[in-house]
């Protein structure tokens, strides 16, 4: 999953980036409102963590502009001001959740997971696709209740697909959301990992749609 992190305080930003990367996210980051706005408008993103007190353009304005431009990715706002007045303003500007500073990293990650899941219309933290289940809270994958062991790349792939069951996901989309900008992105890499995944999952779970991409299918 690809997340945009917008925080102007460098130490906190570095800590948040580390925390998010550890949790398996690909992190884009920015320290000011102007760049953040641009990134939010142009990059493919699964979620945004947005601090409100930003230089150049303030957080709420950036958020309003994203929504006006039709960007619907879930946004979690970070704020030092904990008043209800600010919360109402944030939600009305288009935020999906807020977190007051200081906060625990676990809480940020939990809320982010929930936001991403709900953005795909998935109500439960336990994702199901046929006999396959993925618990977003623990990261455990099970097939008919039996745990399945996956590498981190395989997990990221499966996680992305399980958030969009039944939808066709192109190779490009997978590459963009799972690999960081500077890593070696070879279109072959995806194929290799899809192949590896297929071996661990029941046959026909991941369907290839010629010329378009891959689709996760429920198999009993």
């Amino acid at each position, binding site marked *: 999953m690809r997340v945009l992190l917008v925080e102007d305080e460098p130490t906190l930003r570095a800590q948040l980036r580390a925390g998010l990367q550890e949790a398996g996210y690909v992190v884009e980051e920015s320290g000011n409102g102007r760049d953040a706005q641009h990134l939010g408008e142009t990059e493919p993103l699964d979620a945004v963590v947005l601090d409100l007190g930003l230089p150049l353009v303030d957080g709420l304005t950036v958020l309003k502009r994203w929504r006006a431009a039709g960007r619907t990715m879930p946004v979690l706002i970070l704020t030092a001001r*904990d008043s*209800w007045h600010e919360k*109402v303003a944030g*939600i009305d500007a288009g935020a999906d*959740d807020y977190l007051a500073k*200081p906060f625990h990293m676990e809480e940020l990650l939990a809320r982010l997971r929930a936001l991403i899941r709900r953005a795909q219309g998935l109500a439960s933290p336990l994702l199901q696709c046929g006999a396959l289940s993925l618990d977003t809270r623990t990261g455990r994958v099970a097939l008919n209740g039996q745990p399945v062991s996956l590498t981190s790349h395989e997990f990221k792939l499966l996680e992305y697909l399980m958030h969009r069951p039944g939808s066709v996901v192109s190779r490009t989309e997978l590459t963009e959301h799972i690999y960081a900008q500077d890593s070696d992105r070879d279109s072959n890499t995806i194929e290799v990992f899809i192949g590896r995944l297929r071996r661990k999952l029941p046959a026909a779970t991941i369907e290839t749609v010629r010329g378009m991409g891959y689709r996760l299918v429920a198999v009993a």
Partner: protein
Amino acid sequence: MPGFSEPLVRGRQPAWMLSLRWRLLAATLLALTLALVLAGVFLSGLFRDHVVRQFAGSLTAQLDQVTARLDFDPAGQPLLDPQTLSDPRWTRPYSGLYWQVDAMGDSPRRAVMRSRSLWDSELAVDDDALADGAVHRHEIRGPDGARLLVVERTVRQDTLAAARWRVVVAADLRATEAAVDRFNGVLFASLAVLFVLMCAAALLQVRLGLAPLGTLKQALANVREGRTQRLEGRFPREVQALIDDFNTVLDRNGEVVARARMQAGNLAHAIKTPLAAMAQEAARTQVQAVEPAGLAALVREQVDVARRQVDWHLARSRAAAAQGMPGALVALGPVVEGLLRVMERVHAARRLGIAWGPPTQDVRFAGELQDLQEMLGNLLDNACKWARGMVRVSVASVGDGPVRQVLLVVEDDGPGIEPDHRAAVVARGARLDESVPGSGLGLTIVQELAGLYGGQLTLGTSPLGGLRAELRLPGS
């Protein structure tokens, strides 16, 4: 010049409008000038009229004399013996007193007879409607271009005669005009002096009237420079009310500043304790090379403590700053709806049913928007956190007569709070259940804020099964 350096923002009003002194003086001067000019014109005209009338009166007497001396010869032609007229001016050329007889009728002829004073000139009197016997008055130019007053009358020899004759008597107006001029001179001088005196009086009056403003300016300077805390001094009734209001604002400001200072001090004190604990443990870890995991746990714990302290003190300072500005009214409907939007987002995973019926009439809270949001936000958040599936919100306007209140009720179907524990929950920071996240200060803040507005928070049991939080606040 007053007003010249006023900022453009005020628009380019004329200088006199921007100064009380100038306004008063301008109005007075205008009125004075108008009144005195009118008086002068009126008096002057009245005098002239009077003088001319007098003159005309004496001239008419002369006309009567001449008419009486007028005789007719057997041919019907007028005859007048100059010896019979006593006034020597009749005979002296260009004396200023003249008589003349004109022939009227089909072939009018001027100056059939004339006085010696007229010499060889004629009095050119316009013809007008001839009414026998009536005296007419004219003003014409006579010999030497002098202005003359003319009185004339038309006569007939007797009622049977056809020929009509006009007897004209004229006199120089010079003397009269001199008198009028003299009068006008005196009048003008007097009015001028009067004008000056009245202007001086007006100036004095304005100065006396505006003097309290000077005192006020001084009092304000004293406050601004810190010599006094309030506006001191007695002021006239009209201004005293304003002064009192201003002093109230100053007092309140003073209170707010004092409270803020105290809050900041308290907060600093409260934060330093966890900081000290962390510093201590860090030093110990460094020196004794103790396992850093212990330090990590302590830091987390102290950060929590610090955060609670910050929340607590921030909330208290918000409550303390609540001024309850008079006249501010906040409509309840939109505020509740805004907060419910937040609740829907934040508590989305819980899939709660929130029953909210917008009020039928206009229910308004007499206070600040942020304070209302703080109180309601905490109540709603509480309800949503603890509810099993259902939350109900209602607002209404209650009270009879002029004192009106708003009644806000938030209910949930959660576990509720035992009557014995209710007081403890609302007291500072106490929490009944640590499993649900939050700083546990919500209800305390609600009660404090409500108290500041003279309202009340009451906790009870809801028919839904959980807590019923009832909030009464001033409103309309």
